[in-house]
């Protein structure tokens, strides 16, 4: 009897896992598509921003196209080409998620640069982390955080004024900046774990309902067969 119960449970668990994976995959494909549009929107915004804020570099009365415009057009395209292709041809995969997470943070860095390091543009990083949490995959948030910390760490070494405004910041200053990102991460990771748990519970309930429904169908089929045999016998 207990063997039958264990076998039944393992069948339900396997079905629940399949439903959970299916739902997570469908959700992640949707989020990948959302990021394709977001990348295109950010790309356009970067170009419009560069053309509005700094279209030309001047030398006296002679002007040339400003480096920011080239960076927005070529650099912006370079950043989004891989994640967009992955989202189209490899949607829902782990690699796609992590490349999207890294590219989204690079897009933040680009927008921050194009707006001359405006503090307001730094909010893009925090908004992006929230979008990445839609994947319900905390590892994608870690990738994004590593990219932000790595960007600050490397620039802090080779180009400190661009991040901290001073030429000789303390070596640990990148940790202070990354610390605020990590602060948000804690809550987003918790939200991801809870979200996954809710999906798993819902999948488990669905698997049980399906199993019960299958049992009911089997029972009614057996009942119908018994009835028809009875009718044949009575005839």
């Amino acid at each position, binding site marked *: 009897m207990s063997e039958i119960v264990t076998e039944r449970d393992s069948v339900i668990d396997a079905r629940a896992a399949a439903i959970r994976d299916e739902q997570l995959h469908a959700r992640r494909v949707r989020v990948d598509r959302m990021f394709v549009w977001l990348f295109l929107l950010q790309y356009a915004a970067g170009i419009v921003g560069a053309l509005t804020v700094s279209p030309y*570099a*001047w030398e006296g009365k002679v002007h040339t196209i400003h480096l920011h415009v080239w960076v927005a057009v070529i650099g912006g395209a*370079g950043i989004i080409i891989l994640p967009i*292709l992955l989202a189209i041809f490899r949607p829902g995969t782990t690699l796609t998620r992590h*490349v999207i997470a890294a590219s989204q943070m690079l897009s933040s860095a680009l927008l921050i640069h194009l707006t001359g*390091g405006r503090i307001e543009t730094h909010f893009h990083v925090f908004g992006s982390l929230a979008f990445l949490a839609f994947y319900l995959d905390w590892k994608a948030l870690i990738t994004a955080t590593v990219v932000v910390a790595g960007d600050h760490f490397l620039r802090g070494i080779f180009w400190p004024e*661009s991040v901290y*405004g001073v030429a000789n910041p303390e070596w640990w200053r990148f940790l202070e900046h990354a610390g605020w990102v990590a602060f948000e991460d804690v809550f987003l990771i918790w939200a991801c774990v809870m979200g996954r748990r809710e999906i798993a519970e819902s999948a488990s309930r669905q698997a049980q309902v399906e199993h019960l429904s299958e049992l009911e169908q089997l029972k009614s089929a057996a009942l119908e067969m018994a009835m028809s045999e009875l009718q044949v016998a009575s005839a």
Partner: protein
Amino acid sequence: MKRRALITTSLVVAGLIWTGTVGAMYQAVRRFETTPGRGASGTTMWPVRSRIVPERNRWTLVMLIHPHCSCTRASLQELERIIEMSGPSLQTYVLVYRPSDFQEGWEKTETFEAAKRLQRAHVLVDPDGREARLFGGFTSGQTFLYDGEGALRFAGGVTSLRGHAGVNRGSMDVVDIVRARARQGTHPVFGCAIVTTESEQRQ
């Protein structure tokens, strides 16, 4: 099978472009932002031929700007902070470059308006950068600070990089000098060229 190979190849190429672009972009932006403009080669005293007459016994700050230089907005933001922190002992002049063969109004950009909004600052148009030459400045954002005796105490920029406002040695030096906490200072200047080698030769 062929389509699969094509997609894989495209993704590998995109991956290479992605890596290359990120590296090249960082390098290009770094070079752009950290390369200073031509530093001043000014005299150590107030240029007597200047049409600006400084008040004796007061600090006089002169900033040269190119009205179309987007990086100069950061210099003006820093100048605003310097004016606030230095108090009324500082009189400020912003000289706005305009080529004389360009139509009037060419200089009236957002940067020009930002300069006009500065408190206690006089904004003057500098045709062909004549005043800039007298002061020995070549780059937008170039700042000169003279003491009450007309001696040059600071020459340089007031931003840490091209187009980056924020705490930096240049603006701190200016404030420190006015507050008698430092004697002299200099700092690289970041911005578009006002006086180019070509225009200099023509003069």
